[in-house]
Every structure is written in C-alpha cells, then in structure tokens.
C-alpha cells in the first residue's frame, strides 16, 4: 500500500482549473519531487493534500484512509506535516518556542515537548539561534525553522514547499544535507522545488505538472529526457 495516494484530484476556483484530474502515489521512504513552471498548480496541490482546500473532485488517501475533507490539524495529527512557501514563523516567539509549540502535538507534557524541540533544533542546525525572536531571523534560517517546526510534529510524510528558494550556495548544501538526513530517519518527503540541480539530485521520482495537469512522472533521468517537460520549461 502506498503511503499517499492522490486519486483523480481536480480543484476549480470559479472557472479556473488549478488542478485537473491529477493522480499519483508516494511510496514509503521515497523522496518525490513535484516540479512545474510558475503557476502550474504545485502549491494548490499541496494545499489539497494538507487539507487547506477540499478538492472539487477526487480523493486523497493517506495510509489507506481518505483524508480529503478533513481539516489541516486533523491531517497533521495523522502524521502529515508541511512547510509554507511564504514562510509563516510565529513571529513574536523565539525559535525554540516555535518548535515547542508544534512539538506539543505528540508530547504528553512540557518537558517532553522541550526535549523533542531541542532534538529537532539540533537536527536542523538552529541551536545557535534558539533564543532569537523569529521575526529577526534571516530568510535562510526561517526556511530551516519551517522544516524544524514541521518535523517536531513527528510526521511520516513531510511536504516541503520551496524550502530552497532564495538560499545561498552554502545554505543550499546544508539544506540538502538536512533533507537527506530526514529521509534517513524514515520520513517520506514530497518536495516542490524550482532548483533543478537540487531536485534532480535528491528525488527518487519526479512528478511534473503544467497548467494544473500532470504531464510526466518518472525517475530524474526519465524526466530530463522527456520532450513534454522540456517543452513546458523551455518552449517549443
């Protein structure tokens, strides 16, 4: 059984089809890349999976259970966490408090929440900025904080929405390292990314969407050589 199954999902905003008839699955333990030109409907698809929008048609199944129609907090409790493309740190809280707040989902008491939070912060390399109020963090660290916060809910499936956008070279390498470590822990990852080098090197499989439709699916090698994908990105 696949961990996540997106079954014929369509989402209409008025007359605009942000997603139409998209289907794919994610297997446990893999990294699935989701790519596509700007406005292709990648984030909309995330929002459908994570419960922010109900799909107009179709279903999303997580661990065999239909989750479309549930609220985001219920889906998070089942073990599916996400980060936001436009980072949403809890601004007037310190980095540590941000992570503690999400660690409470699985912790029985505060001591346990702090313990999970500390461990997650070390894992993502934020220990030096632990006590910084998150409003003052530079973008690279805010992106890391997004990941840390999602991880602290101890998910089985992690949705990363452009966690690499706007990072400099060294931050990029750090983040790739973090993603690989997350995978090594047994967490399945679905990632939206524009940075082709990154997505090609870390993904096990890639799904390409354009104008709300799935146009290709396959290994990075297959995607690289797919004429439809090349056309979507570079034009005819």
């Amino acid at each position, binding site marked *: 059984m696949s961990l996540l199954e997106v079954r014929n999902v369509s989402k209409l905003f008025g007359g605009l089809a942000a997603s139409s008839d998209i289907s794919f699955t994610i297997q446990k333990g893999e990294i699935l890349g989701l790519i596509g030109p700007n406005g292709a409907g990648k984030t909309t698809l995330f929002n459908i999976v994570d419960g922010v929008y109900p799909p107009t048609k179709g279903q999303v199944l997580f661990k065999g259970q239909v989750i479309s129609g549930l609220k985001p*907090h219920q889906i998070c409790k089942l073990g599916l966490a996400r980060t936001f493309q436009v980072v*949403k740190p809890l601004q007037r809280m310190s980095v540590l408090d941000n992570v503690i707040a999400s660690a409470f989902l699985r912790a029985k008491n505060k001591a346990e929440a702090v313990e999970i939070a500390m461990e997650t912060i070390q894992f993502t390399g934020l220990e030096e900025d632990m006590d910084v109020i998150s409003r003052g963090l530079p973008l690279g660290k805010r992106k890391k904080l997004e990941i840390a916060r999602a991880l602290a809910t101890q998910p089985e499936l992690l949705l990363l929405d452009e966690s690499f956008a706007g990072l400099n070279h060294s931050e990029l390498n750090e983040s790739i390292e973090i993603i690989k470590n997350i995978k090594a822990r047994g967490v399945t990852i679905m990632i939206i990314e524009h940075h082709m080098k990154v997505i090609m090197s870390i993904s096990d499989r890639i799904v390409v969407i354009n104008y709300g439709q799935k146009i290709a699916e396959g290994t990075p090698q297959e995607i690289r050589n797919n004429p439809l994908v090349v056309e979507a990105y570079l034009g005819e």
Partner: protein
Amino acid sequence: MKKYLPLIVLACLAVLPLVGLSSYMLHMIVLVVMWSAVGMAWNLLAGYCGQVSFGHAAYFGVGAYTSGILYYKLNISPWWGIPISIVVVTVFSFLLGLVVLRLRGPFFALATLAMGEMMRVSAENLNWLTGGNIGILIQERTWIDKTYYYYIVLAIATATFLVVKYLMQSKIGYYFVAIREDQDAAESLGIDTTWYKTIALCISGALTGIAGAFYTNYMGYIDPHIVFALHDVSIVTIMIVMVGGVATLFGPFVGAIIMVFLAELVRSIPGLGVAHQTFFGILLILIIIFLPNGIVGDFQKIKRLFKFGGACK
C-alpha cells in the same frame, strides 16, 4: 527577584488596608484590583490568543446579572453568584463563541462589540428577568466595612492571575500564542484553532463574569447601562490592558492603577463634565504611538529614556 515579584506585590496589597486608608481610598483600590482581574481576563483572549474583543461588557454584565437575578428572583444571597456565574458565563461564552469565533481580526472585534450592545438592549427590555432600566438593588449589604470586600476581590484577582500564569506556561498557552501569531500556520501544526479559541473565550469570559458577580455584591446596585456599558466596561478594559501592557502578566494591574486613578482625578476637575473621556482618547493615542507594548511591555524603553535624560543633565 523577578521570580518573587508577584509574591511581593501580593504581600504589599494584603497589608494595604492595615495602614488605615480612608473609606474612599479603599474604594478606589477595590476598583483597581477588580479592574486588573477583568484586564487579565481580557488579556488572555486578546493579548495572548490574539482575538481582540470589544464586548467584554457582555461577560461582565452576565456575571453581574447572575448575582443580581439570584437575589432578585430567587431570593438567594448574591454571593452565590460568584460560583454560579462561572457556569453561567462559561455556557454563555461557548454559545457566543459558536457565532463570533467564525470571524477573524476586525470582523471578530466588530461582532463582539455588537454582542455587548445586544446584551445591554436585551437586559433593558427583559423586564420580567432583569427589572429592565430600573435595575436591581441589593437591599441587604453584607458588610459596611470595605475591607472585607477588598480581601474578596484580592482573592479573585490573585486566582485570575494564577490561572493566566499557569495556562500560559502550559501547552494551551503555547497554542494560544501560536494562534495569535499565525492561525493558518497553527492549524498546519496540528492545532485545532477553533477549539482552542473557544477555550480562550470561555476561560476569559468566565474570569470576567466572576468580577462582574463581585461588582453586584460590592456596589449593591446594577442596571444595564452600568454593567453592559460599552465605554465604561468594554473600552475601559481594553484601555487598561493597552496602557499597562498587552500580553504581559502585570500589564493589566499597572494599567488598572493608572486608569482608575486618572479617571477619578480627571473627573474631579470642576467644569470638565463628560469631556474627561477626551483625556482617555488622547492617552490611548499617545500610548499606541510611543509605547505600543504598554508600560510593562516597553519598560526597557522607558528605563532607557530616563537614563538618557539623566545623562544629559
């Protein structure tokens, strides 16, 4: 030192009546303590959970009328109103929350404002229950001496302080602040935002209601214009917390001291009439511009300001 500050403040307040204050002065201090309790309750919902209510008079009034109606209709001591108002106001807040918590930001604020006014109009017109505009008079006062009332309200305020302090250190507190900072992010972190906002509203409402029930017992008279007043209850509550410091434990107390005494001072200036309210408007504008976090929240800023002034001499 900081850890013991609440205890020191409490000890000072506890011995205050022993220094031989006049009855008038004691009355002022009873009001200060009562308003700090209301401010702390509002702060829990608005300051920590980010749901700014303009209608806390609704909870204050329902609490006050719980006491009043128990006496007026059932001939029970209005003191029972304090425990009973907890149940009544919690249920009331929960039902209100079903409606108003669907809204966010300014829409929530406006809905609560409307709710407060609705309660006032209802209380004016439900003559069979509330006595309408004639109000409810408690004919037998329990004590003449205000000292007893003072200790009761001090106990209420201390309990309110402890409830807020305890909550804010627990999971619920983290969740409240997370909701304040970003409701969508909070939801994606597995926080049932609707449920926790309802909890914040119910606790905040119940704590305000207790103060309202005390008010009935203390003042001995209530009518809809007093306890459901928009400017004298809802807005004053907001002012107290804004002046003292939003989302701080001591802010409401500091704010209440300033507001109660300032109101009394300004009101005693002859020939000013209702223009005293203008002062509060100006004060609020100054606070928002110069001390957006209130006196407690911006204490470091105030300290720096004075140090700077000292260096210039």
